[in-house]
């Protein structure tokens, strides 16, 4: 039996982790897997640290990913990659958007933003860092940075590019299909 795969999507509330989880949910369901995703709604969405769990396989019981069990960590922000890195398996992969968003504790001076996050994480894990925000701006819409990240992640998962594009088309708002497809392609090609 194929092992259940565990993916985590982490970021800052408002960055669009929910859309990413819908796309991952769509692609895994379409492929006939049993899938469970667990999301955070409500107050934590207001600029707080947010985490989404995705698990798929033949039969999935618990909807959460536990520490030391994640195959892939998709981080929309550097500090959040560091915060959740210990959820990864020994050879886990981190795909990180190379962006810094200061938490209020840093803004008020109560804490310092850690230096060299990507360098340090690379010592223990396979890290793929992408400046997706810059790429997205090149495409003309900073908001689609998360679809670029999906493109990067897709390169490391067992679904075809066409399958991904189909799901993106079905999931994103109709007006944004083209730009999201372009963003996915950019991430997929760059990865």
């Amino acid at each position, binding site marked *: 039996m194929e092992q259940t795969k565990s993916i985590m999507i982490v970021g*800052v*509330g*408002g960055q669009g982790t929910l859309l990413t*989880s819908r796309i991952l*949910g*769509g692609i895994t*369901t379409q492929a006939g897997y*049993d*899938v*469970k*995703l*667990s*999301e*955070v*709604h*409500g*107050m*934590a*969405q*207001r*600029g*707080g*640290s947010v985490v989404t769990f995705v698990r798929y396989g033949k039969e999935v*019981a*618990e*909807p*959460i990913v*536990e*520490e*030391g069990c994640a195959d892939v960590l998709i981080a929309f922000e550097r*500090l*959040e990659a*560091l*915060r959740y*890195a*210990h959820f990864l398996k020994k050879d886990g992969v981190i795909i990180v958007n190379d962006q810094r*968003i*200061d*938490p*209020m*504790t*840093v*803004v*008020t001076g*109560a*804490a*310092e*933003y*850690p230096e060299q996050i990507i360098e340090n994480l690379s010592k223990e894990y396979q890290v793929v860092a992408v400046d997706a*925000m810059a790429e997205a701006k090149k495409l003309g819409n*900073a908001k689609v940075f998360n679809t670029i990240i999906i493109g990067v992640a897709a390169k490391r998962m067992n679904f075809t590019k066409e399958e991904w594009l189909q799901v993106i088309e079905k999931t994103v708002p109709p007006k944004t299909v083209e730009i999201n497809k372009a963003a996915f392609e950019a991430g997929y090609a760059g990865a």
Partner: protein
Amino acid sequence: MAEKKIMLGNEAIARGAYEAGVKVSAAYPGTPSTEISENIVKYPEIYAEWSPNEKVAMEVAIGASFSGVRAMASMKHVGVNVASDPLYSVSYAGVNGGLVIVAADDPGLYSSQNEQDSRCVARVAQVPVLEPADSQEAKDYTKLAFALSEEYDTPIMVRTTTRLAHSQGVVALEEREEPADKKYERNPAKRVMMPGNAKGRHVVVEQRLKKMAEDASSMAVNRTEYRDTSIGVITSGIPYQYVREALPDASVLKLGLVHPLPRKMIEEFASKVGTLYVVEELEPLIEEQVRSWGIKVIGKEIFTIQGEYSANMLRKAILKQEIVTKEPAKVPARPPILCPGCPHRSVFSVLNQLKIHGAGDIGCYTLGAVPPLNVIDTTICMGASISMLHGMEKAKGKEYIKDWVALIGDSTFLHTGVNSLMNMVYNQSSGTVIILDNSTTGMTGHQDHAATGRTLKGDPTFAVDLEELCHALGVQHVKVVNAFDTKLLAETVKEEVARDAVSVIIAQAPCALLKSNVSKVKCVALPEKCKKCGMCLKPGCPAITKQADGTVKIDETMCNGCGLCKTQCKFEAIETVPMA
């Protein structure tokens, strides 16, 4: 083959209601229940509304049920408290069309003020409870709830938790049933709950629960899974998934109906297994009943009453496994904050400068309690800000509250703040109430309410005028101020807290995240004029950061152009420019 779709637990509940032929749904938004109504509204066959609060929603559903159709009210756990008055008594009256209340608990406190267990409320109200364990069951049990409601003539609670409500899983879709409306017959002995009638109905309630408890042992919704019998686990809901993950070989009694319990089935299961555990999040409701029957069972002596469970937690507690995980990195916390452009931040920065204490309420603005704003001193429940400020004044006198205000959002004010304000007028308070009117129910993700002019269905409707409403309650001093006009707001607050009469300040500006509220400008910092004083950083806007040289930078993708930082700057080092 039935169509399969991946669905959020809440979406599946909505689908279940649709398939069960529900005709009326009422709710007040509250995490983690909000998406039930947001999905129900997609089915034109169902009348769906946002009611001003959960008590109203419950009563709307009761009325619909009595008239003969299937009806549902959904709410978060603390909403069940608000709705408990009708809930306790409709339990006596029973139903006509099936009546279901969805109660969404929040173990782990992701977005709530407490961690209460709604099963306990249902038990005291003598209302049966179904608890699904995944999205498929969320749909199936919702349908079953309507059937059981009609069969046993009782309202049924479907209890979920955040983890279920906000997890997605695969669901097989079915067609909608169209049950014929039940005939309405006048029956005051059953539906008029005055003492003489209620006495008789209480007897019926006891008999009903007893019958259901007997039947429960043969209900398919409760099932035994015999594997290795050295360990037996009684569980339900999401914890079932953790049990399956951690103890795949253990025997399990999975309860779908968690109240009343199937005693015969549990006794038989207990007799066949070695060590018996009860795994349930929050209160030991199942455990205590099982133990009261003389069955030896292990529960809360090794499992916590707080928070969510996990498979690893069970591995440690039951199997005594040592789970070695890496230490989490020591990183700065990232608690939730008010968004860039949030009008509440503007109001809080004014109150902070005036050193005003805030009796707070439930909404995004509860975040005004934390640094750097530090305005809110108290938060208990919906509507409490106003009544608590009144209580403080009556305890300590008028002078005591001269540096206090009550702070409440527009949706929360309409939920349960109106009565409290009426009380302030009636009982001659001198307090000041600030209604933070952002034209929406913000924290739960922008739901309409009675003052927005739009229904849940999206249709235009009459909008309650908050100013007129306050006047009608007898408040003589009502001022409406733009929340971003910090100067006028400061003057108004000083004037009103000094006044020896009840006053209301309506601080207006739409939520920055509302789709209709697209900013045409953004703020830019001018480093050559910046004196590095840090005043613009004080309101704690996440779009502004201090750079290494002490000057500030405004993130162009985050900035909403609200201009609050500009009003703080004495050196004209921040300007607004048109959005690119």
